[in-house]
């Protein structure tokens, strides 16, 4: 007679929502007629993500949510931080889905390929280029990825963490390759992401094995216990290192960032937005859990490491970003730099550091989705015009678009009265509190330098004369409009009156397990 493991379905509702939606989506793909799939899939995905978001919020506000519980035989930790991150991921995921669903911009009605199986450049491919059909699998795939991310940040156990990692990664690899235009780039991005991703997860796995060997358990709490009692042996430390490598890869922290620019540039822009926002949140969620829960009592081991890679990431991201000529690539390097800034928050104490990082993730995710959404608007003959030079004089053609982009760029640069500044201030404050002010100074200097490449785009849009055959600014359909409205509003609100959200993050800043 086997007794079933404890399973608090209430605590799992968010995940159930999302995964449920994904599974139904798969069924729809196989049974629903093609012409209805697009709307149905979009609806499903939205239901799943929004439902997930709603349920996390509900869980967070319901009584007894704090201090959080461990469920599913201790595999999952449902706590403040976890819920905050899940909500963030679900919300950002919903926005990304909206970007996926945009049909107003591309003459072919979608950013995704009609049929991925058709070789790029073949005659069939050319005739499908303007076909209204869409590889609607992207929606369930994206939903799966979102589910994986939400699982990732709730994982209380290295194995679950690994599974979640794969669940979020594999769909991403696929949808990276599904761009309708510039398919070669898209496919190349997919291959690179896949091979390197798999490579990285191998490291993660090996680290898992070593930690398991050193401590005899894969439960974070167990690891913590043994670290506290038996201290840190070589095996354990090696394991920690490899685990960190695996996670930092996903978080696109230098020196594990190399895939980021290529994939961000090659992938369909909505997917890039999705990755830039959600993947980063998920990866940092896992990093926080691993470092704070499992190795929280041995922080002296990883503190210098994080210190170091934070600096490397900021410097690499900023310096390489200076000379980029492609908007998406530029934003990719900016995301590498931001990973560095986030790490300064990770350095902070479990209290302010955690809440600061949570806030930063939210702010950055929203802003970056907005930025990529703007990128989808600026188009010329063959799809999006991502060359910086093409943006010259955009402010004349479409003051609104230029204004929105400028605002979001200022947020990324961390100018006051934008969410970017609030976030930066939070993480830097946390780092200073633990005496890491030299790191903060480095971070501030690098963000000053980073100002250059954000402003370069502003200079182009406003101060340069427009080129005759410059790109046109598409009129966004409802989905993209919603996304832009939400992100810009959020960026502004989080910059001007961030109080409530900061408090929320403060209250959420708790990890169990």
């Amino acid at each position, binding site marked *: 007679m086997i007794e079933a493991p404890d399973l608090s379905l209430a605590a799992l509702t968010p995940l159930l929502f999302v995964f449920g939606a994904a599974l139904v989506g798969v069924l729809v793909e196989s049974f629903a007629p093609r012409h209805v799939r697009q709307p149905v899939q979009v609806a499903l995905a939205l239901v799943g993500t929004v439902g997930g978001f709603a349920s996390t919020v509900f869980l967070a506000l319901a009584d007894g949510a704090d201090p959080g519980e461990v469920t599913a035989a201790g595999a999952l930790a449902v706590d403040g931080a976890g819920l905050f991150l899940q909500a963030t991921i679900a919300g950002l995921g919903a926005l990304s889905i909206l970007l996926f669903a945009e049909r107003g911009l591309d003459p072919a009605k979608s950013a995704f390929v009609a049929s991925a199986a058709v070789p790029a450049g073949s005659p069939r491919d050319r005739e499908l280029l303007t076909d209204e059909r869409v590889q609607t699998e992207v929606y369930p795939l994206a939903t799966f990825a979102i589910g994986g991310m939400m699982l990732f940040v709730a994982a209380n156990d290295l194995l679950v963490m690994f599974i979640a990692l794969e669940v979020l990664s594999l769909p991403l690899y696929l949808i990276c390759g599904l761009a309708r235009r510039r398919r070669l780039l898209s496919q190349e991005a997919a291959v690179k992401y896949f091979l390197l991703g798999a490579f990285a997860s191998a490291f993660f796995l090996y680290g898992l094995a070593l930690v398991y060997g050193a401590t005899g358990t894969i439960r974070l709490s167990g690891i913590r216990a043994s670290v506290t009692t038996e201290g840190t042996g070589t095996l354990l430390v090696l394991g920690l290192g490899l685990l960190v490598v695996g996670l930092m890869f996903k978080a696109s922290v230098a020196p594990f960032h190399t895939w980021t620019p290529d994939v961000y540039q090659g992938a369909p822009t909505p997917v890039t937005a999705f990755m830039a926002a959600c993947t980063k949140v998920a990866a940092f969620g896992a990093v926080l859990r691993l470092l704070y829960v499992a190795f929280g009592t041995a922080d002296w081991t990883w503190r210098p490491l994080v210190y170091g890679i934070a600096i490397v990431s900021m410097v690499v991201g900023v310096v390489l970003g200076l000379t980029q000529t492609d908007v998406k690539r530029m934003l990719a390097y900016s995301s590498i730099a931001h990973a560095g800034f986030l790490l300064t928050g990770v350095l902070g104490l479990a209290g302010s550091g955690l809440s600061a990082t949570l806030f930063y993730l939210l702010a950055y995710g929203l802003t970056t989705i907005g930025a990529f959404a703007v990128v989808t608007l600026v188009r010329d003959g063959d799809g999006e015009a991502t060359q910086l030079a093409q943006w010259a004089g955009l402010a*004349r053609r479409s003051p609104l678009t230029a204004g929105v982009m400028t605002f979001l760029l*200022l947020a990324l*640069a961390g*100018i*006051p*009265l934008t969410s970017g*500044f*609030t976030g930066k*201030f*939070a993480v*830097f*404050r946390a780092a*200073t*509190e633990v005496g890491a*002010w030299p790191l*903060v*100074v480095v971070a*501030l*200097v690098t*963000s*000053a*330098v980073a*100002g*250059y490449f954000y*402003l*370069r785009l502003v*200079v182009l849009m*406003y*101060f*340069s*004369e427009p080129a005759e055959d410059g790109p046109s600014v598409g009129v966004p359909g409802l989905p993209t409009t919603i996304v832009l409205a939400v992100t810009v509003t959020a960026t502004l609100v989080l910059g001007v*009156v*961030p*109080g409530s959200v*900061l*408090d929320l993050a*403060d209250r959420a800043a708790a990890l169990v397990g």
Partner: protein
Amino acid sequence: MSDFPWLLAMVVLPAVGGAAVAALPKGRDAVAKQATLGVSLAVLVLAVLATVAFDTGGDRFQLTTAVDWIPAFGVQFALGVDGIALVMLLLIGVLVPVVVVASWKDTGPGGRPMKAYFAWLLVLESMMVGVFAATDVFLFYVFFEAMLVPMYFIIGSFGGPRRQFAAMKFFLYSLLGGLVMLASVIGLYVVSNSQIGEGTFAFDALRQLDIDPGVQKLLFLGFFVAFAIKAPLVPFHTWLPDSGAEAPIGGAVLLVGVLDKVGTFGFIRYCLPLFPDASRTFAPWILGLAVAGILYGALLAIGQSDIKRLVTYTSIAHFGFIALGIFAFTLEGGSGAVLYMVNHGISTGILFLVVGMVISRGGSRRIADYGGIAKKAPLLAGVFLVAGLASLALPGTNSFVSEFLVLIGSFPARPVFTVVATVGIVLAALYVLLLIQRSVHGPVRGLVESQPFPDLRRRELAVVAPLVALIIGLGVYPQPLLDLIDPAVSATMVDVGSDPAGTQPVHQPATAEQGAN
């Protein structure tokens, strides 16, 4: 009367006005101008009323408004002014309308509409008021950085040929300074957190902290670098000539006249009271920079061939004087420095405006292209001369009083630096008179000959008249301003540990008790 939130109104009104102007439909430049002028005049009125409501004998900070802004960080939206900030607000109130009228006929490069320009002007005004009126360090920082954005667009969109470069250099240079200061701001917060138990940014609370000297030095440097870049002190000055030369005249006036004062204002408002020990430690070095700036700036001004660059370099020299007065730690020097901040705003403002009028007639910034202006445009030449004399601090003009105060106030405390600084008086005469000799005097030639070069028009008269009046008026009777400034500076002297009553003479003259005169 004093319970009305004057300062809040002065921050909000232009901001709203700016938004409104920006929202105007295309091609409504005329409306934009009138609206901008109206708003800026309203702000001037508010400033004057605020001054009336201000009680010179009262608390250090008055007309205060404070609401919690970001409780998580203990940030308050707290406004309030002491005499120092108040006179700066008055300066802003005067300069902005003048600038608006001065820019009335300007046309953007490539004929781009000027609507945005006026909108940005108003936004800038709001930010400038905020930065001087903030009594919460975080809020100050927010305005300090946000202020860059409007100026960035003013320079970048409506400036001269190299405006893109200039705007970028201006923004990045200032941003760097600002971010270094942010480090100190955060540090200050952390210190307050450890000392008071809860982090705060309230100026008055921070002033009470006693910070360990080592930490103090670091925090001081953070603030100092930011302000030294803004002010700017040599060697952090090279962005100013580019920005000042490329900015549209109106922008240049506000940039040099007000924005840069945030640096010197920061010295006296934040560096001295918050980090007295560090200030004393670094004073000799800073005085060195100040004096170096006086001579270096003047020399470079003499060497310039571009009128606008020349004016910016003269400002660098003047900022040297201001810093000298501040870091001499005497009441007379400090008051002189603050008065200097106002006067320099006026005198350099009018100098820039006149230079702008000359350029708008000739269409070139090279001094060599002009000559004998006095013959064709006597009125313009006259105003030019007045502006020049004000900038070389001739007695009877406003600048004399402040320069004299700075020097006589610094001399007792820092004789050597002061003596070297006085050489700047001669150099000032040199660069002004050289400019006059080359462009205003001499036979009519160059563009003055080839261009129509009309004399001042009505509108231009309206622009310069109030400034000339102020130059003379404040030159003859500066006492009202000094009465505003003195208490605040005196309080600062207490913070930094100097005699709040001023410099006691070595000997008490027999006639002292009958009053010095």
